[in-house]
């Protein structure tokens, strides 16, 4: 109001408007506030796809555990396992080369040389490998292996950036669990085949992510394979695994999607400015 007597309130600190210090006109107070600016909302499909990545990794871990159990009880011969993995590796490689990235002949030769080198060294060292943790009791071995597999799941890269993600820690944790479990075997070939399986499932299978058409479909396939294998071992473990997979792949995305409606972010002049990096 400017009737000549009372000056208009201005948002400045250097002049005395005549108003008391604790007065701010209601229309000026928080006038520049913006709510929910640049809000990123995820669709239900995106939530399920994201959760499917986690579910896939969990299924791979369960399949690894089942193969270990089968190797232990001699239901699965180590030779069979090795031949199956070799076959899958060849199929995967051809699909990768044809669909994702072209490789030169020298590149292919280098890759084959690495595989050959790894196989030879692994086979040569496997008698040492399976004796490493021989004296530790089975309960301790199982709990160490499971906790390192849990660390592997926690630090895996699921497609989103977070401070906890580190592929080095996740791969090392997985290989550590293999070293623990390999000591329960009697023959070094079983230990070697378990080591190959661990490298195959924790290093090579995540590389196949670009090959697969839809994460949800592949996670469902892997989950059903894992659960059917687990049903041959024990029923309580099957129930727990089913519960875990259902929570991660169904309950969590639905909850996340529902809670998005409650998102509220506040922006205003008090925010730290973002530096514009426009090209000069």
């Amino acid at each position, binding site marked *: 109001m400017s009737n000549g007597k009372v000056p208009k309130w201005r948002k*400045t600190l*250097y*002049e005395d408007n005549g108003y008391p*210090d*604790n007065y701010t006109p209601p229309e000026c107070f928080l006038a520049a506030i913006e709510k929910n600016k640049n809000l990123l909302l995820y669709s239900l499909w995106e939530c399920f796809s994201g959760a499917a990545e986690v579910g896939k990794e969990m299924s791979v871990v369960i399949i690894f555990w089942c193969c270990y159990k089968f190797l232990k009880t001699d239901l699965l011969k180590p030779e069979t396992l090795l031949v199956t993995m070799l076959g899958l590796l060849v199929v995967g490689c051809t699909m990768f080369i044809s669909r994702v990235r072209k490789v030169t002949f020298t590149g292919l030769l280098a890759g084959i040389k690495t595989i050959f080198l790894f196989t030879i060294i692994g086979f040569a060292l496997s008698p040492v490998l399976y004796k490493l943790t021989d004296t530790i009791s089975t309960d301790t071995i199982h709990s160490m292996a499971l906790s390192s597999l849990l660390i592997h799941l926690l630090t895996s890269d699921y497609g989103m950036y977070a401070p906890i993600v580190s592929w080095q820690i996740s791969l090392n944790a997985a290989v550590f669990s293999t070293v623990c479990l390999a000591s329960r075997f009697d023959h070094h070939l079983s230990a070697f085949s378990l080591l190959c399986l661990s490298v195959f499932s924790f290093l090579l299978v995540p590389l196949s992510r670009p090959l697969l058409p839809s994460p949800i479909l592949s996670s469902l396939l892997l989950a059903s394979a894992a659960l059917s294998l687990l049903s041959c071992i024990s029923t309580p473990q099957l129930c727990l695994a089913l519960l875990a997979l259902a929570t991660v792949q169904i309950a969590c995305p639905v909850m996340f999607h529902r809670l998005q409606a409650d998102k509220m972010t506040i922006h205003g002049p*008090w925010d*730290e400015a973002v*530096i514009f990096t*426009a090209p000069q």
Partner: protein
Amino acid sequence: MVLTIAMVSDFFYPNMGGVESHIFQVSQCLIERGHRVLVVTHAYGDRVGVRYMTNMLKVFYLPIMPFYNKSVLPTIVCSLPYLRHILLTEKVDLVHGHSAFSSLAHEALLVGTLLNLPTVFTDHSLFGFSDASAIVTNTFLKFSLANTSHTICVSHTGKENTVLRSSVVPERVSVIPNAVDSVAFRPPKVRRNIRSVVTVVLGSRLVYRKGVDLVVEVLPKICRKKFGGGRVRVDFIIAGDGPKRILFEEMIEKHGLQARVVMLGELQHSEMRDKLLAKGDIFLNTSLTEAFCMAIVEAASCGLSVVSTAVGGIPEVLPDQFIYFVQPSVGSIKAGLERAVEDVITGDRPDPWEGNCFVSSAFNWRNVAARTERVYETVCGKERQRLATRVRNMWEGGTVAGPIMAMLYLACHYFILLLDWCES
């Protein structure tokens, strides 16, 4: 009405900074107005116990070691007996806490409300809302301010920020800006004659928050250009230290600007005027967030033109004739600096002493102390709240945290009763 006021904060002399000088200056001006002021802070090295500063300002250095970021660990039970003893023996009438980052200040506010004293809190900074640390800090601030009688903020943006963070009623928040000693920060006696060099000065901690990445980009571009029809060049003087100093050194090496850019390193606050501000024509400030920014007021008081990013509370501080506002981008800062340099060359800017007069009338410590005294009188005149009301205020602060804090408050109340009984 003569009051005994206890100023409590983690940040005080021998630490140097905005909050520290604010507490000291306001205390001195309040003593001048006839009140009795004491300051309570934590120990600095072996500076422990009671010290007296200018005009019998009694400072209590409590024997508590700082824990993180020069603040003590907020245990409450550790500092409660000390604070209670000081507040009762000195017969303190009012507790005034400073700075949201100071845990000692919050504890003093808690003890003050438990002893049924009026309490005032001054918030000197802006804070965000989005990350986890911000959420926790804002929740604690909410409980701390639930029973505080009045809050003071240093700018209108600061008031909005504090009200949003702590859900305080806006009528209980006053806006009283900081001030600058315009006698210490005066223009040089002999006015600088612009012949062939215009000097731009920069004085801040060299960290990301102060936008130094932008300065590193702009500096070579400005140094390359010639102004005033090709006869004037621009030189830079940069004071301050920090993790980003290496960027400046690299930039100087890369463009060969050793003769054009001088790095002074860390300067004491008392040296700022003589070694930095008296030698410059333009002051550049590129902070990304700032509640009040004392530096630009000090620069205006010394008669420099100010080029600053318009963030936080900065648009409220200086009128248009003393400041050029820019956006936090390289292009905008370059354009703003060019305009300022051209105006300096043509002489199209206010006289340096005009800036000093403006600052001495608009931002002086006696004015701040008078307005703070008015807040004290309002607060002392109000009726004291009963214990039940205070506990209720805490309880309603949150669904889970509210009851917990209310019970903690009651536990502290019984602790004080226990201490009263032990002493009698």
